[in-house]
């Protein structure tokens, strides 16, 4: 999927990936790819600045760790990030429900009520 398609949703996706626990930058990239069966294989160069932006906004916390003899920057959700993720999930659910209602073929469960009346 093209990165432009996800523009506006990247922050929410990154927060969702980090909701499972702390990850380093490349771990976030891998999780995005594997959890979407390769659909969200985004340019790696876009992920790191986005993580820094989320850190600057106080939605994630970053710290350097050295557990395996290799210094890595690990990101984790802050309480503000968890709240933001909850809000993003609610907004996405409402959006997806509304779009599904409009795009589903008339007569199906997800179709608009007016299309069957």
């Amino acid at each position, binding site marked *: 999927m093209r990165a432009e398609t996800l523009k506006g949703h990247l922050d929410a996706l990154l927060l969702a990936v980090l909701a499972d626990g702390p990850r380093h930058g490349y771990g976030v990239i891998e999780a995005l790819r594997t959890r979407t069966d390769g659909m969200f294989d985004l340019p*790696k160069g876009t992920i790191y600045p986005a993580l820094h932006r989320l850190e600057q906004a106080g939605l994630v916390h970053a710290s350097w760790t050295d557990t395996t003899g290799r210094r890595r920057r690990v990101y984790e959700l802050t309480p503000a990030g968890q709240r933001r993720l909850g809000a993003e999930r609610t907004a996405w659910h409402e959006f997806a429900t509304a779009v599904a209602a409009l795009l589903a073929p008339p007569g199906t469960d997800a179709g608009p009520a007016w299309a069957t009346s």
Partner: protein
Amino acid sequence: MGDELIQRYLSDLDAALAVVPASARSRAAIVAEIGDGLADAVADHLDRGHLPDQATGRAIEEFGAATVLAAQFVPILATAQVHRWALVLLRTGPLVGALWLVTGLLAVSRGLPIGWPVVGILIGVVLVVSVPCTVVAVVVTGRGSHRWPLRPRQAADAARLAAGGAILGDLVLLIALSIQASPVLTAPDGGLAGAAMLASLIRLTLATRGATRLRRARALLG
């Protein structure tokens, strides 16, 4: 060959990030993190059966051109600069202000004619503009930034205004005191006036430096 390519990529990234008046430490942290990610990407491609040079080439391709990657970090570093200088102004303001306030009140109580009404009005105007601008700049570029509708470039404008206010305020106070330096400084509590002057000189230096950095940061924020 592969290591050389990665080192060259990281050097290019560092050079491209150097356009921001950020600390070398911030730049080094970004370069180290990207280097770590590149190492992961190379290992990933090696696991998939690519030859070392191919794996390096593919990893670099996935990260994109160093200048393009750096361009995405530039506004982040510039915003951090705005935050840093706004904090400097916010933290130094109360100390400098308190020293001058006490100096002024003591001078007035002794009836020294050092033009305090005019100075008071000028400083009042500076405070009314600078204090809100400084607070806005700190908040909008800080950890709660997602809650505010203002953008970092507007915070940079506010911080520049605050820095200008600090420079103007300190200059006014220093000039006012220099007019009557002798009676104020030779008074029994003249040391306080000296401390106020010193504090203002230090802050003037900081604010001037900050104004230059903020101008560059603002230009980078578009």
